[in-house]
């Protein structure tokens, strides 16, 4: 985490003075992008850097669904299962992905290539069903598109 401090300094410069505590979330995002998850040593370093109590960072990390304390597979497949996506076939997409990858939602394939998750509405209901492949939205998903996607990433 220490090597990211110059970047954090640039982020800080954009915030009003006295907003150090606000940097908790952006810094955690950045750390996770760097390491794939947030490790204990990152938390300790961040608390020291921002002068915020450890418990504040722990609460934030435990609260938000996008933040992780442990690593996951190389590709993170997140399938929306909220209302509009379910009405457009998300349940089939999830079932198919489970079968194709041999895992249940929340699990990682044995080869560490894929982690499959289900998520709530991604704000893309007009192009349902929606699937996130790492950071990118893949919209109007079909079973055929999903097969091609997985094949391309395997």
């Amino acid at each position, binding site marked *: 985490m220490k090597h990211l401090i110059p970047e954090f300094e640039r982020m800080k410069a*954009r*915030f*009003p003075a*006295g*907003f150090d*505590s*606000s*940097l*908790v*979330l*952006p810094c*955690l*995002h950045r750390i996770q992008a760097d390491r794939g998850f947030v490790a204990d040593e990152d938390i300790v370093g961040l608390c020291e850097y*921002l002068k*915020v109590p450890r418990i*504040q960072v722990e*609460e*934030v990390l435990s*609260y*938000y*669904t*996008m*933040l992780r304390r442990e690593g996951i597979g190389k590709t993170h497949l997140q399938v929306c*299962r*909220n*209302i*509009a996506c*379910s*009405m*457009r*076939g998300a*349940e*089939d997409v999830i079932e198919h992905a489970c079968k194709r990858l041999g895992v249940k939602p929340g699990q990682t394939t044995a080869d560490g290539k894929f982690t499959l998750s289900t*998520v*709530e*509405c*991604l*704000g*893309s*209901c*007009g*192009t*349902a069903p929606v699937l*996130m492949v790492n*950071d*990118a*939205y893949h919209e109007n998903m079909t079973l055929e598109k999903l097969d091609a996607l997985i094949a391309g990433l395997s």
Partner: protein
Amino acid sequence: MPGRQLIMNFEVTPASHTLADYRARGGYETLVKALGMAPADITKEVTASGLLGHGGAAFPVGRKWGVMKPNPGEIHYLCANADEGEPGTFKDRWILEHAPHLLVESMLITSYALGVRHAFVYIRGEFDLPYRRIQGAIDEAYAAGLLGKPVPGSDFALDIVVYRGAGSYVCGEASGLITSIEGRKPYPRNRPPRLTVKGLFQKPTVINNVESLANITGIIRMGAEEFRKVGTAKSPGTQLISISGHIAKPGVYEVEYGYSWAKFLDEDCGGMLHGAKMKCVVPGGISTKVLTRPEIENLTLSHESVNPAGSGLGSGGMIVIAEGTCMVRLLQVLLRFYHHESCGQCTPCREGMGWMHRIIDRIVAGEGVPDDIERLYAISHANDGTTICGMGDAAGFATVGILNKFRDEFEYWIANKRSKMDGRLECRA
């Protein structure tokens, strides 16, 4: 096209979101006009326009601004709410992706009116392209000298920070959003104090939805009087409606208030998917009560028409549901969502959401009892107006809305241990 357009009034091209294209459409000219006005006159104009908030509650934007008394030297903040968490809603995303400079210009004007030096765009963490687009627009604005230092020809300067969420529905609630920006667990807060009195870091803060703000530039450019010529007397202007579900042409539509609802669905949106029959519609995000097709037949898309029918246009997240869809399963999906998103702070919502979720799961598992329906009602009522933020109420509205109209499906499942509708949510050809 469902009426006149104020926001989606340009052709989307691969470059239409850039500063150059925005300028070519007259972008940032209104800012110059605004900076020539007294700040209080801008608020007056916005109040006169009758603009209603597009975040869900349709609260008059001018009235919210009116609470902020810009005192020179005092700190005020502005946050654009781009959390877009209400299931069924995806219209702010359109603005962020295609008209980011409209938001930036509007935020400049708003900040000038409210004495704001630092503004935030709070965007949900999952949004990737929308994030890159709005951050890109802000970077362009910095490079062009519109942000970060006094706007040429004035002594007004503004900084805008894009703040990314990390997966949480309550961060869309204004006070949860603020606590999130403070870097803490995003617990919503009790009112009083109002956020316009004590908001971000205890300073007066205005939070408006992205679409509400995007309207500001137009209002100042054309003047309140012209703006009011669009829409109806009680619902001035337009609303971006994101429509999804069993509809032929889902997507974002800008609808002039007062437009026929049936016509919108049948013509503009191409009618039902696979020519199915329509069962009901969620008008404005899942927290608004469902209306059946007969109920909406003669309604127009305006607050004065939809509210008396016992629902609301909310966030404009319209979900169309075809005949044959299982409402028990549908409610199950909603209750799972509310349970997942309750922040857990206040008793009725923390305990109630989990309880309702367990009840509906039990019904679907064939272990329901007739009493369960009354229990769902009771829990919903016990969340009505008793919680810290609107989330508890919202879950209650959604539940009561569905139970009121489709009670028979619940009774059927409890009595027969299976769906009256084959448990389908999908509408197959």
